[in-house]
């Protein structure tokens, strides 16, 4: 059976793409952010995952309001990036892990998750940039993208996203394969782009949330979506991706590295790398 080696979470601000393209990683504005990934690069070199299951949210590239899924699971041989409206350079396609995609889909429907299956799927900055951050030299893993709706309310509750993550974790661990899988969640932490409250950031909440993912992973499921918007901003709800990721990694974890930096663009940028301590299937 496949093995989950751990979970990685990070913010996914589009501006990161510009910084990478322009080689600004060492500039004072960007250095505290990019340096946070260095210990994770060493860990990834060490553990060598084969596959990444990625929880992310689409920002209006692949999905529009005419067909807006709550949960969408990719089942494509490859996933292409494309222009999101800003003309920034697109990244080369990512190789899909089709066997795992369908295994996850079978398992999720069996567990009464009413997913949308996507046999063709464009992936936006929320998917591409984190992979670029974790593997700046080129992405060595095959992927299974799982998209959670943060565009059209009502959004799935934190509790539901946690349950989704758990079910995805079960699916991975029951996949007949000797591959090593890392789970990735992208988005957050607190930020708000729209309205008179634009620029809202909640540092104490973010830090507590990051702590909770290590010791008390269900902590955030106590909050309704409305409460999460209030506490973390309209885009801060992207922490649902982190929650699903942690839920997919079973049992106890070791903190490999974490980073928290204000601001990147309008965002409190967070990053965590958690190693699974549970080796049983």
């Amino acid at each position, binding site marked *: 059976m496949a093995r989950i080696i751990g979970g990685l979470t990070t913010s996914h601000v589009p501006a990161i793409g510009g910084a990478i393209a322009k080689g600004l990683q060492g500039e004072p504005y960007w250095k505290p952010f990019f340096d946070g990934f260095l210990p994770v690069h060493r860990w990834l070199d060490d553990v060598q995952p084969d596959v990444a299951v990625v929880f992310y949210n689409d920002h*209006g*590239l692949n999905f*529009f309001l005419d067909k807006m899924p709550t949960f969408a699971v990719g089942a494509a041989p490859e996933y292409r990036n494309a222009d999101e*409206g*800003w003309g920034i350079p697109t990244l080369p396609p990512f190789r899909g892990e089709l066997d795992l995609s369908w295994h996850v889909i079978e398992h999720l429907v069996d567990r009464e998750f009413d997913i949308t299956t996507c046999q063709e799927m464009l992936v936006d900055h929320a998917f591409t940039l984190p992979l670029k951050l974790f593997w700046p030299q080129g992405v060595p893993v095959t992927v299974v993208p799982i998209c959670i709706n943060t565009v059209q*309310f009502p959004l799935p509750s934190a509790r539901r996203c946690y349950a989704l993550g758990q079910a995805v974790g079960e699916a991975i661990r029951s996949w007949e394969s000797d591959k090593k899988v890392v789970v990735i969640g992208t988005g957050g932490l607190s930020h708000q782009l*729209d309205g008179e409250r634009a*620029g809202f950031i909640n540092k104490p909440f973010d*830090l507590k949330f990051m702590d909770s993912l290590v010791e008390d992973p269900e902590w955030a499921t106590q909050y309704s979506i409305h409460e999460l918007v*209030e506490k973390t901003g309209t885009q801060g709800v992207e922490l649902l991706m982190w929650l699903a990721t942690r839920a997919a990694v079973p049992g106890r974890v070791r903190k490999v590295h974490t980073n928290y930096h204000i601001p990147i663009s309008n965002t409190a940028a967070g990053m965590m790398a958690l190693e699974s301590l549970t080796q049983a299937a």
Partner: protein
Amino acid sequence: MDRPPAIFGTTIFDGEQARKGYALNRMCFSFNEQANRDAFKADEEGYMRRYGVQGVQAEAIRKRDVLGLLAAGGNVYYLAKFAGILGLDVQDLGAAQTGLSKEEFKARLVRQNEQPTRLAA
């Protein structure tokens, strides 16, 4: 379902907003493609008509009025593509919506570092 209390300066993009904003959001979604961005730039009024964008929505587009676009049912993810056409980044938008200059808005973001590190119980 009972409606939870409003959050200051925050519009939840729910069904009510979505109903108002569909034409506007559909137009902004089209800006993913360079050809459509060019077509809009070449003839804003014609492009808006083609997507059925009219009334307060068209007025807010003409004025580059971000809060007006949100009030008219615009969704921030699609509006960001309109902002892209104008060459505005999210901090320009933040400044515009909060009535600050861009420098003031950026300084306010940096000041968020002074927040406490522990959540009040």
